């Protein structure tokens, strides 16, 4: 297990490095030099020259990359243009909000998706199964920003059950959680459908397995068989799927943050693009990429932990 974890960690580092290389290449290939973008049209040649040297852009490209690369691994993503603060600081300030949003989306999707999937598998073919099947497909098909807007209109504006915008009073955890309910629903609702379908399909497969027949032949109760003997196996593909699905949740988070006017990395990138704050955009993209890969890594380790076959094979 330790060796497996180390291997996976090394792979993750490699992937992040590759992402850095890609990002660097993209920035490098963008037409126009960053100094003129940063300084605006009224800058003199001398000012541009000075900034280029300050940013190290007069160096050969491979040295530029090496500097970018080593700096990035040390958490130095350069300074942003508007306030000249370190990009890393700005992104890290916003990151917890996005993490909370995604965690909320996960809670929704797991808390609803797994029981629904399980239940429909056990009651397959029934009315409830079919109704939930149709609903699942529906929520998968609806884009998350539509969910966000409707959730906002229905639960916040019309019914006034939940707060509409913002992230809640700083320091008031209850209020912040309340503000998290609708945006995280917008992020997670589609995943409720995905997970319900996925769990149902793998449950149906597992319930046909010979070892389930053995469990029945030993007289175990239906509860025991469904939850302990079948679900513990049927859940494994879902964990992997969730790890990959984080990428999609991150992009939903952008919309949710904009619609609900919440702070977060998505909102940050959105604003940064509007103001052409390129260092901030690229820094935020790099951080989200690393986050995505880290969560994937965690998902793989969780599967390894849950599945003894994987655990011992690696």
């Amino acid at each position, binding site marked *: 297990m330790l060796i497996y974890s180390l291997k996976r960690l090394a792979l993750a580092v490699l992937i992040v490095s590759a992402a850095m290389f890609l990002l660097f290449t993209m920035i490098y290939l963008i037409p126009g030099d960053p100094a003129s973008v940063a300084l605006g049209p009224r800058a003199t040649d001398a000012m541009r020259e000075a900034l280029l040297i300050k940013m190290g852009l007069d160096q050969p490209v491979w040295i530029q990359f090496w500097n970018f690369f080593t700096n990035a691994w040390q958490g130095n993503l350069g300074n942003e243009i508007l306030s000249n603060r370190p990009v890393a600081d700005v992104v890290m300030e916003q990151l917890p909000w996005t993490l909370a949003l995604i965690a909320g989306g996960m809670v929704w999707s797991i808390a609803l998706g797994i029981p629904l999937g399980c239940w429909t598998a056990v009651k397959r073919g029934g009315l409830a199964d079919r109704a939930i099947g149709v609903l699942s497909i529906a929520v998968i098909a609806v884009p998350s920003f539509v969910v966000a807007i409707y959730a906002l209109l229905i639960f916040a504006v019309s019914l006034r059950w939940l707060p509409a915008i913002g992230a809640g009073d700083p320091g008031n955890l209850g209020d912040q959680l309340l503000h998290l309910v609708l945006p995280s629903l917008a992020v997670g609702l589609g995943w409720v459908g995905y997970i319900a379908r996925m769990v149902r399909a793998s449950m149906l497969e597992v319930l046909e397995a*010979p*070892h389930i*027949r*053995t469990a*029945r032949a*030993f*007289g*175990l109760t239906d509860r025991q068989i469904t939850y302990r003997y079948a679900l513990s196996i049927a859940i494994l593909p879902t964990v992997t799927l969730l790890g990959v699905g984080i990428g999609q949740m991150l992009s939903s988070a952008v919309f949710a943050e904009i619609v609900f006017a919440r702070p977060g990395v998505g909102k940050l990138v959105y604003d940064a693009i509007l103001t052409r704050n390129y260092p901030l955009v690229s820094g935020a993209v790099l951080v989200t990429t690393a986050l995505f890969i880290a969560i994937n890594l965690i998902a793989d380790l969780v599967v390894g932990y849950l599945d003894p*076959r994987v655990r011992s094979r690696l």
Partner: protein
Amino acid sequence: MNVLEIRHLSVSFAAEGGSLQALKDVSIDVPEHCIVGVVGESGCGKSTLINSILRLLPDNGSIDAGSIHFEEQDLTQAGRPKMQDIRGQRISTVFQDPMDALNPVLSIADQMLHIQYRSGLGRKEKNARSLDMLRRVRIPDPESALKRYPHEFSGGMKQRIAIAMAMMMEPALLIADEPTTALDATLEVAIIKLMKDLQSHIGCSMLFISHHLGLIAELCDQVVVMYAGEVLERGTARQIFHNPWHPYTERLLDCDPGSQSSRMRHLPTIPGEIPDLKKRQEGCIFRSRCQFCEDICHAMPDEIQSNGHHVRCHRRSP
């Protein structure tokens, strides 16, 4: 006294293009402390028979007629809780393929623990009992074996564990569905000996299903010969192997003279094919492959019985 008495059991599956009658008018007795062997070609309904006894038929299968008496009750009429009670406690089963018979994500200890949920014992006692069972089936280093997972064992070891689990609750009836066909021939003898030892130790009866005629001859007290979902002949091992009445049984034994002692692992092949179970013909089911087929065989033969030797064949009719 019979532990298990199956009478006129008929089972069918709803399948594409009509229903498929997998068992027709099957009657079998399993006396106390006896080992009863069931032989028959692949697809003759052996697994369906077991699934009917355990009431674990797939959703499309149903018991159409007949009764299955076990310990004073008719299992065909038993409700879910009753069946759950019987399974694993009074009737235990060892299945054919040990590779996938145990849950892959639960440790052996957990699985053995879960089966004992009705025993009323404490956790420590249950674990001690699991350990004792593993020792009895001769798993090397049982303490560490308990902590391990099924994939860490070989097929033979897994089957030993499955047998330990089946015997743990000291059932009245042990059902074994070809417990050694998926294993090496070299392991077969050891596993069979183990089952026989445990069976006589616990004093249970056994319904032993196999293709292996040699094994059946060696192990079983009584033998049931099945063909296309019907019992063609049944009797003591001596009656079946030394004085077979049904042409089908004769053919099975003929294919290899001295088959009683030879280690024939697979049933000999007989020319012709099993009839289509969706369109059962009138009369004797073996007719299409029988060298003695006559006009009278188009009518269903009655069951003839003498000294516990039962047969369905017109050639034996008085």
